[in-house]
């Protein structure tokens, strides 16, 4: 295992990861009060950003990377359901939801995997 690895990956990190994200902070920094937060374009972007993030979550659960792929699909979806159920039962406690989903995933894999 090399700590640094491939330098091209760092170039990608700057150009594809850092800059496209940081540009919004800079824009907020420079134009500040000149932006109407309730403008229709920003509302639309917020909906699209939420949907993209949901899409990323779905893909992580359906075609998971690495070790998560060794957990049966049924167990992955079941653990998400347990996490959501506990989250709502605890009046939206993220921590309780995450912990119970993790426990469900481990138990499920031990039982069915």
């Amino acid at each position, binding site marked *: 295992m090399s700590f640094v690895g491939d330098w091209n990956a760092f170039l990608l990190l700057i150009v594809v990861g850092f800059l496209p994200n940081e540009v919004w902070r800079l824009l907020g920094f420079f134009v500040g*009060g000149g932006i109407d937060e309730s403008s229709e374009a920003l509302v639309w972007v917020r909906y699209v950003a939420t949907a993209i993030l949901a899409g990323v979550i779905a893909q992580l659960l359906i075609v998971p990377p690495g070790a998560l792929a060794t957990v049966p699909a049924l167990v992955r979806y079941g653990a998400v359901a347990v996490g959501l159920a506990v989250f709502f039962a605890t009046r939206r406690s993220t921590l309780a*939801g995450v912990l119970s989903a993790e426990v469900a995933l481990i138990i499920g894999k031990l039982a069915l995997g």
Partner: protein
Amino acid sequence: MTPRFTETELPSNRVAYWCALRHVPGLILSWVLFATYIGIGAMAHDLNFSLGWAVASTLIIWASPAQVVLLSTLGAGASPLQAAIAVSLSGVRLLPMVVSVLPVMRQRDTRLRELVLPAHFTAVTFWVESQRILPSLPRARRIAFANGLGTGLCLGASLATGIGYLLAVHLPALLASGVLFLAPITFLLTISRNSQRFTEWLAIVLGLVFAPLAARLNTGVDLLIGGVAAGTIAYAVQRVRRGV
């Protein structure tokens, strides 16, 4: 309960900075954030990025959705252009956060460069906690306190990224799968927590359903197609419900 710090408790910027650093581990939000970053570190390992790359991504991008989008698009072999567009769309939400948080810490004689670091630290956890706690602080100490908060959160998250990466290297598959599961489950619950309106839920549900459908198109920009379609439908429904 919001803790209160007065002028006598924060006599200097240095004290305010340290106070903020010590404030970080006491927040539940911090622990959810660290859990997310443990998952991101593990993801970076399983998608064949280096440990240094993973920690650097946390320090300079400092936005977990952007990082997960970057990892999953590059890891799945998507084009850099699609990755950049998807990252950028996930980052737009930072703009209104920066716009709303900087005035809380600005004074009449504040120099613009003093706000560069707080602007970079702005991400959802920092923003939520700043909005909650800064108004109760003496105005002259707010930037130092915000920088302490941002330093604590960002260093904690970088440490968590490294820990997650090393856990993925050394843990048996059973526990490693649990570590990887942290990223999707913390995200799902965090966006659920932030959604109050019906149409926000609609964007989440449609986003979840459209992604695997769009993935069958194999265009290289599937994530964007699914997300733009789902988000636009939710936005349109919202407009219809508002009657405009």
